[in-house]
């Protein structure tokens, strides 16, 4: 059933790299560098602004992919891949959307394992890519069975 979702994407959602959210996130990962948090340091940096940590895109809203119903439990995060064209600047608007890139199954110890490749994208207002964040999510046979009932 996930195969049918390959190629589907969500509509773009406008997000803002909020100063407060960056602070909370930086604190949660124990990375409270002044380049993330201190306005003066940001201003005097090569970015002329504070930036966000590389795993910050976890907090953005990427919209909803129609027809893709993922359970909120039982998923296993197998891999995560970030690609950046440049760091994210605090205060900027990012247009985000998600796309199902692939789905495949492999035989495993406990039945067949499903691998869903989800790509989250962030662009500037002109549609220029800033980052992609790709997750490979493992969906076990047991979880898939519950979904089809």
């Amino acid at each position, binding site marked *: 059933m996930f195969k049918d979702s390959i190629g589907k994407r969500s509509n773009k959602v406008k997000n803002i790299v909020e100063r407060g959210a960056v602070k909370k996130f930086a604190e*949660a990962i124990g990375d409270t560098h002044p380049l993330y948090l201190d306005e003066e340091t940001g201003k005097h940096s090569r970015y002329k602004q504070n930036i966000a940590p590389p795993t910050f895109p976890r907090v953005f809203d990427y919209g909803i992919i129609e027809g893709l119903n993922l359970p909120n439990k039982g998923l296993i995060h197998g891999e995560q891949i*970030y690609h950046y064209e440049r760091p994210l600047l605090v205060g900027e608007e990012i247009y985000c959307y998600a796309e199902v890139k692939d789905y495949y199954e492999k035989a495993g110890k406990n039945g067949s394992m499903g691998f869903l490749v989800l790509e989250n994208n962030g662009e500037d207002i002109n549609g220029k890519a800033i980052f992609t964040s790709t997750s490979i999510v493992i969906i076990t046979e047991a979880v898939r069975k519950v979904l089809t009932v």
Partner: protein
Amino acid sequence: MTKLSELEIGESLKDVQLEAVSRLDLIKYAGASGDYNPIHTIDEEASKAGLPGIIAHGMWTMGNLAKLFTAHYEEGFIKDYSIRFKGMVFVDDVITLQATLNEKTQNQLSFDVKAVNQAGSEVIKGKVLYHQY
């Protein structure tokens, strides 16, 4: 602080050992990231999922690991950061963050990065491609 560009292949950044993982760390990350999957915060939900206890969000560990590079954002930035989640991180685990330079081209430095627990097992492992300005 050493500049990354001065590192030789095979050399490592200084390891960082984190404080023992606490439940509060994971509650904070849940709130900051919006990932409220209860296996990371609520004991009963973790045991219902067949786990011996709550486990850290893989993304919490991945977020922590990236801080080895934070002080180097003036001379470059993380262009690619890929991680494979290999083992679970439990409350009270002591995680150490490591990065070793394994390849150098004109303006790109490729690091092998990983986080290991107190038993020396890899919990996450991957690569950072650092682009120099």
